[in-house]
């Protein structure tokens, strides 16, 4: 218990300590200033522009920027889709996996280009090393970089005055990859490999079991085949890019994907590192770092509140486990609590912390099975996703989502005093408000409509694995996860069916690209505006009052939208649990 709290404090302290240096560095990268690494990688950067026929000084308006982003993502989709369909004929497939089924390949390609990494497959039983490395891992990098590019474009919208342009997509993409994502991934990958995350191209090794296992049919199994692969390199970017698509079926619960408490700490750190630091980058580029700290403070406060609920609920466990005869009492020799679906090396606190981290951001990696969480413990990750992935959020996408909430917050404050709202010296007018409202409503609608369609159809109902309200929770979680590009699941759900593969892909596409287009439209509109100096009547957006306002808006919108649905799932399940 005490150790659990110490670990949480340590974790958050390390994240917050790194926010300023990394945030500062990323601001240098995006403002095209010397950042150190450009001395070595500058020639590579220029070579990329030459090979792609890009003039880096060529600025784009928001529409052109959007088209470039969409074209790049579409190209990525086709490469990945083709790789999955052709993997049977391609090299680096030591386990001889056949082509991926077309509906699953479609779902997976959409899932990875949208930074969702929803997985209707088990990695070690479906994907060749080549597909993982050349397809999935590449999208881990570039989908993250796409999100960062859109964020930077939005920040420029606030910063620029009377401008028709918001930057160059190719430059933002290239610099995100070369100077931020690749160097950080190299460091994390090597640290993870030191802990035991595998990194090899050899076929799966076989071990002779110490004690052969007798199967139900009386046959005996004496060997254990151990899935391996080029894992560490992929896991590093899976975490850093808030992607979350596991190399293995059980993701970061798998001992070869997350072998030790230290690797777990690094993986959690890698999830929060960039999204948290981007808040500082935002403040730095906007010329007032307090603005970034205010947004970050709002995120941290909501995060801690929900984390506490999750830890408490998981540590308490369920009366069902206790009455079955298990000892759930924490002590120096066991973590106790609800250990179904959790690993001993992580125990309760590191599982709950990982779950909160991965769903507050749009990561979706898991180190424990959320489906087996207690009703309230499992509601925390689900609701964090439903809040719109803004509690740190995805790389880039989290902060541009949160800035939409900030626009809504200043608008509400403006209504109270009867003034045109302003944010960072830009007047927030009808167009921005319409777009920001759509940004907030879009994933909510996709999640709720998707769930409604699934529970109303036979094909949808067939997916539920657990009986009762928990089966409903599985479906609600799935559409919330897809619409908000998280990718984690209540994994019992049987979602590798044409119905789920197709409808969840629609939710992912809408949640990613419509969202981004709206954000870029806001960016274009803001960039064209003139600067309004702050006056006595301007609401300060860097103080505690704004932090409270922003938290309230996020919570109220999230609660109003989802409490009716949550009441049918985790809330009624909790009542059933304590009622007997």
């Amino acid at each position, binding site marked *: 218990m005490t*150790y659990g709290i110490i670990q949480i404090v*340590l974790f958050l302290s390390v994240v917050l300590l790194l926010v300023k240096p990394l945030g500062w560095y990323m601001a240098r990268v995006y403002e095209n200033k010397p950042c150190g690494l450009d001395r070595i990688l500058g020639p590579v950067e220029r070579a990329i522009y030459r090979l*792609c026929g890009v003039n880096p000084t060529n600025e784009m308006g928001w529409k052109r920027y959007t088209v470039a982003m969409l*074209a*790049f993502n579409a*190209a990525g989709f086709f490469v990945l889709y083709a790789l999955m369909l052709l993997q049977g004929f391609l090299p680096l497939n030591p386990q001889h996996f056949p082509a991926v089924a077309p509906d699953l390949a479609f779902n997976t390609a959409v899932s990875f280009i949208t930074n969702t990494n929803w997985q209707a497959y*088990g990695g*070690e039983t479906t994907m060749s090393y080549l597909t993982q490395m050349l397809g999935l891992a*590449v999208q881990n990098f570039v989908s993250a970089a796409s999100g960062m590019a859109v964020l930077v474009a939005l920040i420029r919208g606030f910063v620029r005055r009377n401008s028709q342009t918001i930057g160059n997509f*190719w430059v933002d993409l290239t610099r995100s*990859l070369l100077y931020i994502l690749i160097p950080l991934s*190299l460091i994390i990958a*090597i640290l993870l490999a030191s802990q035991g995350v595998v*990194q*090899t*191209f050899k076929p799966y*090794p076989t*071990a*002779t*079991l*110490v*004690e052969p*296992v007798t*199967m139900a049919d009386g046959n005996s199994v004496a060997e*254990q085949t*151990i*899935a391996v692969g*080029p894992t*560490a*390199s992929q896991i590093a970017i899976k975490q850093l890019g808030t992607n979350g698509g596991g190399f*293995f079926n*059980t993701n970061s*619960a798998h*001992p070869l994907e997350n*072998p030790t*408490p230290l690797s*777990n700490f690094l993986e959690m750190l890698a999830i929060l590192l960039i999204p948290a630091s981007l808040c500082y980058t935002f403040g730095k580029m906007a010329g007032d770092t307090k603005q970034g700290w205010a947004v970050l403070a709002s995120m941290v406060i909501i995060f801690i509140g929900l984390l506490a609920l999750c830890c408490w609920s998981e540590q308490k466990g369920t009366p069902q486990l206790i009455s079955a*005869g*298990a*000892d759930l009492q924490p002590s120096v020799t066991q973590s106790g609590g*609800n*250990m*179904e*679906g959790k*690993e*001993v*090396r*992580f125990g309760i606190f*590191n599982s709950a912390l990982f779950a909160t981290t991965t769903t507050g951001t749009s990561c979706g990696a898991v180190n424990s*099975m959320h*489906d087996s*969480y207690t*009703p309230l413990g499992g509601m925390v990750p689900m609701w964090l996703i439903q809040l719109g992935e803004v509690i740190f959020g995805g790389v880039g996408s989290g902060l541009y989502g949160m800035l939409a909430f900030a626009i809504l917050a200043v608008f509400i404050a403006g209504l109270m005093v009867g003034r045109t709202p302003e944010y960072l010296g830009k007047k927030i007018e009808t167009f921005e408000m319409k777009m920001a409202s759509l940004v907030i409503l879009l994933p909510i609608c996709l999640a709720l409509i998707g769930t409604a369609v699934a529970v109303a159809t036979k094909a949808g109902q067939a997916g539920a*694995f657990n*009986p009762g309200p*928990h*089966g409903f*929770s599985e479906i609600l979680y799935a559409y919330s996860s897809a619409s908000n590009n998280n990718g984690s699941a209540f*994994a*019992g759900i049987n979602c590798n069916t044409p119905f789920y593969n197709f409808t969840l892909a629609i939710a992912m596409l809408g949640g990613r690209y419509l969202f981004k287009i709206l954000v870029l439209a806001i960016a274009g509109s803001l960039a064209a505006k003139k600067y309004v100096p702050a006056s006595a009547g301007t609401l300060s957006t860097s103080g505690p009052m704004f932090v409270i306002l922003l938290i309230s808006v996020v919570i109220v919108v999230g609660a109003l939208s989802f409490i009716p649905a949550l009441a049918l799932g985790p809330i009624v399940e909790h009542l059933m649990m304590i009622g007997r």
Partner: protein
Amino acid sequence: MMRILRQAVACIVIFTVITGVIYPLIVTGFAQLVFPHQANGSLIIDNGKTVGSSLIGQSFSSPKYFWARPSATSPTPYNAANSSGSNLGPLNPALAENVKARITQLKAADAASKQAVPVDLVTASGSGLDPDISPASAEYQVARVAKARNLDETKIRELVVKLTKNRQLGILGEPRVNVLELNLALDNIPNK
């Protein structure tokens, strides 16, 4: 428009080469050179034979071995080629039944025990491959293993304590005992 498409295709090709070929090759080269044991799966070789991985659990059911946690992988428990949790919801009757059946098994193997059964010993892990049990779960089994092996309980307990991993760097994670390593060490105790 055509120009943007050309740029998009060129970009995805170049970044596929950089992040999909060069980057993983650098990581593989480094890992194989500096951490070859870890990079290849932390395999345990005993007399030239691979007997498992120190990171991957195995199933044990004989009273003379420490038992690992239940595993939900199929078709066999601890199938390291197809990791899986049970995904049973907290109120799913199957979960309570599994726990009860497991407790019955444990009690049947050691009728004399009056200890409470630690929760991790009766619940399936997330991966289905958890190599560890809590020290409490190891202690629960000491008497049974000692009896089955006709050894002194203190001797077994000493071994458990010796093989218990504490929190990493003194802070991180939970104390734990690696079941496969413990059982291999048991088999290496010379017979009296």
